[in-house]
């Protein structure tokens, strides 16, 4: 059937969704579904933890961002570098971050990736080539250009991938990073996760552009817009952009369109979002759509899908139970690690 228009800035009128992208080979497809299901299960579990008062501050989740996180992460090699967002738990999980480490970050535990020196969404692991973000998005866009610069400088064919949202495209770092990456032909792929809201601010107050992909033209680089709820479509454009970067042909911009289905964070009821918008997008759950595609392709049957989801929920609960008893940092360590030796 002809899909509703959910790819467009409300300013620009209707757009038709692209046809469903070709899928990938079975093992990769199943792996992508497993990580998407795990991302959903871990975030659902952390919502419960938030409501039970087990987390320090608020909780930032990526409901309806699963296909973007996993589809892009699956296009990269381990030696590539990512600079993800707080909506991209799937990127971390794909590369080997443990769910309890993320929970530990939201709890300020000594065992978190920052040892409790930072918290909430500010986690990463450089040993997995994941750069830890700060809240000043897209601060990590220029940082990712530096990772791309270093990968090329060292003579590798590595690629850096940076993520930001629709809201952060308004900041100068977005422009400066794309401009430098373009003029230096850096092996960098920039993802804009257009989830239609920048905290409470809708697209109509964020940009007068028709979309974000078209901004690429201003930097002399390719820009492509993709359905951010379709993991295979996201993966397909990411693979193309990564191949281009790896071949030395320079950076690309990918706009992946989705909807932020929870508040900016869990404290935010998001009552500024029209109900008809969330109702529309509720019909396009990326995890459900991925499951349906696997069944359609004959990669998994209904029971197989159910087993993956059950395993994901069990893993999330197991990691929650594991993290609760982990130690908090020692106060007398506060002044350590300000300067490197």
């Amino acid at each position, binding site marked *: 059937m002809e899909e509703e228009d959910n790819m467009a800035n409300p300013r620009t009128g209707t757009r038709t969704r692209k046809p469903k992208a070709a899928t990938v080979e079975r093992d990769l497809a199943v792996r992508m579904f497993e990580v998407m299901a795990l991302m959903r299960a871990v975030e659902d579990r952390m919502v419960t933890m938030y409501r039970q008062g087990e987390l320090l501050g608020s909780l930032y989740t990526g409901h309806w961002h699963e296909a973007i996180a996993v589809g892009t992460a699956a296009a990269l090699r381990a030696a590539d*570098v990512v*600079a993800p967002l707080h909506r991209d738990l799937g990127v971390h999980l794909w590369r080997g971050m443990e769910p309890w480490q993320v929970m530990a970050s939201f709890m300020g535990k000594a065992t978190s*990736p*920052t*040892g409790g*020196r*930072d918290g909430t969404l*500010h986690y*990463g692991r*450089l040993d997995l080539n994941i*750069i*830890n973000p*700060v*809240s*000043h998005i897209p*601060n*990590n*866009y*220029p*940082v*990712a*250009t*530096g*990772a*791309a*610069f*270093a*990968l090329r*400088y*060292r003579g590798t064919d590595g690629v*850096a991938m940076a993520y930001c949202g629709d809201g952060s495209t308004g900041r*100068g*770092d977005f422009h*400066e*990073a794309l*401009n*430098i990456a373009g*003029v*230096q032909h850096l092996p960098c792929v920039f993802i804009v996760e257009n989830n239609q809201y920048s905290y409470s601010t809708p697209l109509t107050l964020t940009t007068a552009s028709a979309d974000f992909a078209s901004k690429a033209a201003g930097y002399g680089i390719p820009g492509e817009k993709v359905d951010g709820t379709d993991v295979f479509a996201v993966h397909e454009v990411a693979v193309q952009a990564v191949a281009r970067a790896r071949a030395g042909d320079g950076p690309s911009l990918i706009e992946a369109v989705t909807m932020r289905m929870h508040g900016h964070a869990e404290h935010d009821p998001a009552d500024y979002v029209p109900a008809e918008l969330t109702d529309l997008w509720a019909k396009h759950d990326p995890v459900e759509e991925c499951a349906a595609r696997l069944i359609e392709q004959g990669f998994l049957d209904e029971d197989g899908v159910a087993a993956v989801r059950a395993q994901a929920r069990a893993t999330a609960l197991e990691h929650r139970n594991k993290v609760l008893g982990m130690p908090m940092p020692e106060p007398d360590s506060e002044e350590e*690690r*300000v*300067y*490197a*030796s």
Partner: protein
Amino acid sequence: MPAKTAAATVTYLEAIADALRAEMDADPDVFLIGEDVGQFGGAFKVTKGFLDRFGPERVVDTPIAESGFTGLACGAALMGLRPVVEFQFADFISCAFDQIINNCSRHYYRTGNPIPVTFRAPFGARLRAGPTHSQSIEAYFAHVPGLKIVAPATPEDAAGLLISAIRDNNPVLYLESKYLYRRVEAPGPLSLDPVPIGSAKVVREGTRVSLLTYSVGVHQGLEAAAKLAEESISVEVVDLRTLVPLDVATITASVNKTSRAVVLHEDARRHGYGAEIAATVQEECFWRLDGPVVRIAAKNTPIPTSPQLEDAAVPQLPEIISTLRKVATT
């Protein structure tokens, strides 16, 4: 790498260039990035000839994008390279404030992953360059945990501290005086041994008053001390050289000896770096002091352009001499 430069005399500017060239020769992970640093050789010509010597991979001309290239340098440093970032004027570093503060300065504290980057910033007044090209920026950054700050006064220290900054595993803000670029020189050949970060130096010994200063202030202080010696007033001049981390031991040793302290800098007086030095001196040396710690600094105004106004804004020799005389003799 050559341990010494060949020229008969070496200016402050040449010392910076010699040190940077030597480090780039010695360590392939060191690269230079900034505006007009390559084809043009830098706005002040510090990096003249570098593009030919090292190629565009290691001498990177950027668009006007201080935040962008600072972030790039931080990302590259995170991956193990050792970028040297040139800000054309220290005044432009404000465009990169977010990257330096929120990303660079605390990344190691947050993650345990070091960012070994050097920020070269030509700073200071006296060139009739006006409110947005004459600023002293040290106080903004001295407040921020995770950054180191050096401010050499001589060609010897300009070379040695730059080498240490590049080899340091932390972000180092290297404040080079554009006023001193071609006004001071040292006899060649110049040593290219590193000067340790965090080490002040007594550049003139004295007994009656300690003048605690850095950068241009060191030269003014030495001139003032020579004049006051004619009146038998003995001034000890301490060149701080590093602002963060501060060499408290050298400062307290000097003040405990002379019992009097004057702080001199070209930055504005209010909340200037001298306030931190004065506070440190009273905490460490209070019972040895014969009088209050006195600050000589620029007025609490922007740095104006016209010579008559600029000279009225920043510390001049007569004020330094009279202040030292008063402190030493009361």
